[in-house]
C-alpha cells in the first residue's frame, strides 16, 4: 500500500528523501488513532479463528487506521510548512480489551 503519494507530501522511513537535500527541519510530527473492533467483524473473525489463517476484516481495519494516523501526521507536517516527513515510524499499543492505538511519527523537513 502506497502511504505517501496520495497526500501530496514526500514520506520516507530513511533519514533523508532519496535524491533530495534537506534544507530545513521542523521537528517531530505525530498522528494517532484509537480504534475498537467492529462487532460484525469480530463475529466473522471468531468463525475464522476455528480454521486459522488471515483475518481479512482486521487486516483492513488496521490498514485504514494506519492510513488515518499517517494522514494526521501529514496534516501536522503541512501546518508547520514542511513538504516531507523523514524517518517515519509506526507503533501499535493495546489500550484496553478490544481497542488499540495506532500512531505514526516522523521528522518534518523541507527538501529541495
Amino acid at each position, binding site marked *: *500500500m*502506497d*502511504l*505517501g*503519494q496520495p497526500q501530496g507530501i*514526500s*514520506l*520516507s*522511513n*530513511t*533519514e533523508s*528523501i*532519496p*535524491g533530495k537535500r534537506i534544507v530545513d527541519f521542523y521537528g517531530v510530527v505525530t498522528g494517532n488513532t484509537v480504534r475498537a*473492533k467492529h462487532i460484525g467483524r*469480530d463475529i466473522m*473473525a*471468531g468463525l*475464522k*479463528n*476455528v*480454521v*486459522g*489463517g*488471515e*483475518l*481479512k476484516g*482486521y*487486516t483492513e481495519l*488496521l*490498514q485504514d487506521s*494506519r492510513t488515518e494516523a*499517517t494522514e494526521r501526521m501529514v496534516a501536522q507536517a503541512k501546518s508547520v510548512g514542511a513538504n516531507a516527513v523523514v524517518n*517515519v515510524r*509506526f*507503533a*501499535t499499543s*493495546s489500550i*484496553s*480489551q*478490544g*481497542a*488499540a492505538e495506532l500512531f505514526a511519527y516522523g521528522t518534518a523537513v523541507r527538501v529541495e
Partner: protein
Amino acid sequence: MLELELFLNFGVPLLILLLAYFLGSYIERRHFRKIRERESALHGYPIMTFEDTPDTWRVGSSTLVSGSVVVSLDYFKRVIAGLRASVGGRIKTYEPLLDRARREALLRMAESAKGSGYDAVVNVRLETSRLANSRGNGNGTAGVEMLAFGTALKLDRK
C-alpha cells in the same frame, strides 16, 4: 439422553478439533505454496533492509510503502500450543504461522511497490503486534499483525 449429553460435551469439541486440524493444515499448505510462487515471481526485485543504494543508481522519486496482514491460529493448533506452553519448550505450531504471515506482509509491500512502478524498496522494517482479545477470559478472537514497510524508489533511466 446420556449419549446425547456425552456427544454434546465431548463429541462436538472433538469434531471441531478435527475439522480445524484438517482445514487448518490444508489452508496452511495452500498458503505456503502461493507464497513460494509469488516469491519466485519477485525474484531479482531489490528489497533491502538498509538505506544505502549503489552509486550507479540515480533516484528519481520515492514514497513510503507498506504491507500488512492479521493472522490467527486454528483451534487445533491453539489447543496444542496451550498444552505445550504448560510444559515449556518449542511451540512448533506457532512457527509456520508467524513465518507465513511475515512473508505475506513482505510480499504485499513488494507487490504494491512493483505494481506502482517502483524499482526497489530500501530500509525495510518488520513489526509484529498482538491484537488484544475481545473478551478478558482469553476465549475471544486474538490475532497477530505483521507489518512490513519501507521506502520505494523510482530510478531515472537514460
